[in-house]
């Protein structure tokens, strides 16, 4: 079961053909609303390269994942609070300076791997032609410095945890992280 956790244009038939069993559809929101959004939405991501914003979001655990170039200090906070590092393939696809983007993404992923921050790899597709198959995203993960096993896990491990948490919330059994009603 693989999940694409950032899709802006949903094409269910094509997603199934590419090997995914589920996807998370992207919707934009203002930074002020983040704390409120985490309770309502399935998966909240902070997209920012600003270190202060990243640190604040990690400290307050107001998001599920952070996307961008992240320093080790913030990555450590994220690992403690089970916040994932989100890597979008579309960042590399749309980038004008691919070498630079690839370098910084690899650097961040290597640090996250060392600190054991959860990593989520997704396509970040803005239209259906930017969707990529499971094997391509696994290859992307491997090229970023992950092992084959870790690259596969980046497509389902954290995503399944989020999915289970949301299911518990829907049934009203979820209280807080690690605390569930019987």
């Amino acid at each position, binding site marked *: 079961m693989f999940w694409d956790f950032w899709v802006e244009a949903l094409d269910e038939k094509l997603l199934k053909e590419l090997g995914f069993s589920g996807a998370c559809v992207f919707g934009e929101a203002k930074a002020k609303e983040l704390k409120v959004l985490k309770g309502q939405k399935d998966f909240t991501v902070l997209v920012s390269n600003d270190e202060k914003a990243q640190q604040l979001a990690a400290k307050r655990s107001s998001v599920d994942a952070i996307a961008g170039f992240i320093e080790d200090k913030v990555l450590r906070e994220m690992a403690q609070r089970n916040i994932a590092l989100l890597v979008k393939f579309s960042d590399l*696809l749309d980038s004008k300076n691919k070498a630079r983007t690839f370098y910084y993404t690899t650097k961040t992923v290597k640090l996250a791997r060392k600190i054991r921050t959860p990593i989520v790899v997704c396509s970040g597709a803005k239209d259906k*032609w930017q969707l*990529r*198959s499971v*094997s391509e995203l696994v*290859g*992307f993960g491997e*090229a970023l410095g992950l092992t084959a096993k870790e690259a596969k896990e980046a497509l389902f491990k954290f995503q399944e945890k989020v999915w289970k948490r949301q299911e518990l919330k829907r049934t009203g059994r979820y209280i807080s992280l690690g605390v569930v009603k019987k």
Partner: protein
Amino acid sequence: MVKPKNRKRYIGFKIISDKEIEPKEFEKAVKDSFMRLFGEFGLSSANPKLLYEFWDKNTGVLQTNNIAIPKIKISLALLKEIGGIKIIVQTLKVFGTLKKIKERF
């Protein structure tokens, strides 16, 4: 017996697009994409080749070596369009021998 470090591998792939793609154009696009990302040295060590005998309606096989497989996968994923036709390349399977490809294709 000591096995050589670079062993041949064959990547089976499928192109998702509205129209059919010419195999020569595709091979050129893959090499260009690989060259842009990994340079001439990377291209010479990976040496990707399209096997024309297995090309059939946007499905084909690329020959490379075991070390370059993730790099080839990235350069395939970075292909957006060929000759103005938008495409998605999906790798199907990595084969070790030509015999296995003949069984599948």
